[in-house]
């Protein structure tokens, strides 16, 4: 495959490509940062990236969002991924809230929210 072809494919699938890029960035944030809140934000970015990929699957060129008008005929997008991702967003916010409450408690017990410091206080292991 030549470079032009690859670029054209990536242009055609641009949402997928950027979703993957965002996923990697979020994943990187989650892996390499010691600050736990940063980890949570990275997790959120990762989640949104996956949602972007998922919603992009349902897109149809020229499609309208699926709100029916009786008597009018339109091309609609595929509504299923959108419906699924609504669920996903709520899941993400629940996890975020719970993770933040754990972080607050960790801060209360350890006096820090740095993963490495917590590990040092506990002794051994890695997060």
């Amino acid at each position, binding site marked *: 495959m030549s470079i032009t072809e690859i670029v054209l494919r990536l242009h055609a699938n641009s949402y997928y490509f950027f979703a993957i890029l965002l996923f990697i960035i979020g994943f990187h944030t989650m892996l390499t940062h010691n600050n736990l809140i940063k980890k949570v934000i990275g997790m959120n970015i990762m989640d949104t990236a996956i949602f972007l990929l998922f919603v992009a699957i349902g897109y149809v*060129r*020229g*499609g*309208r*969002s699926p*709100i029916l008008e009786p008597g009018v005929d339109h*091309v609609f997008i595929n509504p299923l991924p959108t419906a699924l991702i609504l669920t996903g967003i709520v899941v993400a916010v629940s996890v975020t809230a719970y993770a933040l409450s754990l972080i607050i408690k960790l801060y209360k017990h350890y006096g820090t929210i740095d993963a490495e410091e917590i590990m040092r206080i506990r002794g051994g292991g890695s997060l």
Partner: protein
Amino acid sequence: MGFEFTFLENIFIGTGIILIIATFFCLYRAVVGPSDADRVVAINIIGTKTVVIISLIAFALRQEFFLDVALVYALVSFVATIGIAKYMEKGALE
């Protein structure tokens, strides 16, 4: 898109593009700061611009119920700004 854009719709999209480019500069301000207040101002502006961009593409894509989303933004971003400002002032949210 399944239809040709009219002249005005093209203008709307063009306006949107210029606004997005402007948003990049706001992001620059949000990143470099220097103070927290600068960042909050930047995010406030990004919020306003988002509302406008959403309204623009609602008309450009001929889907007027997108305006609901813009209205939600106008309402909710205010809450976020107040929250951040309160934290900045007091160091706590209560």
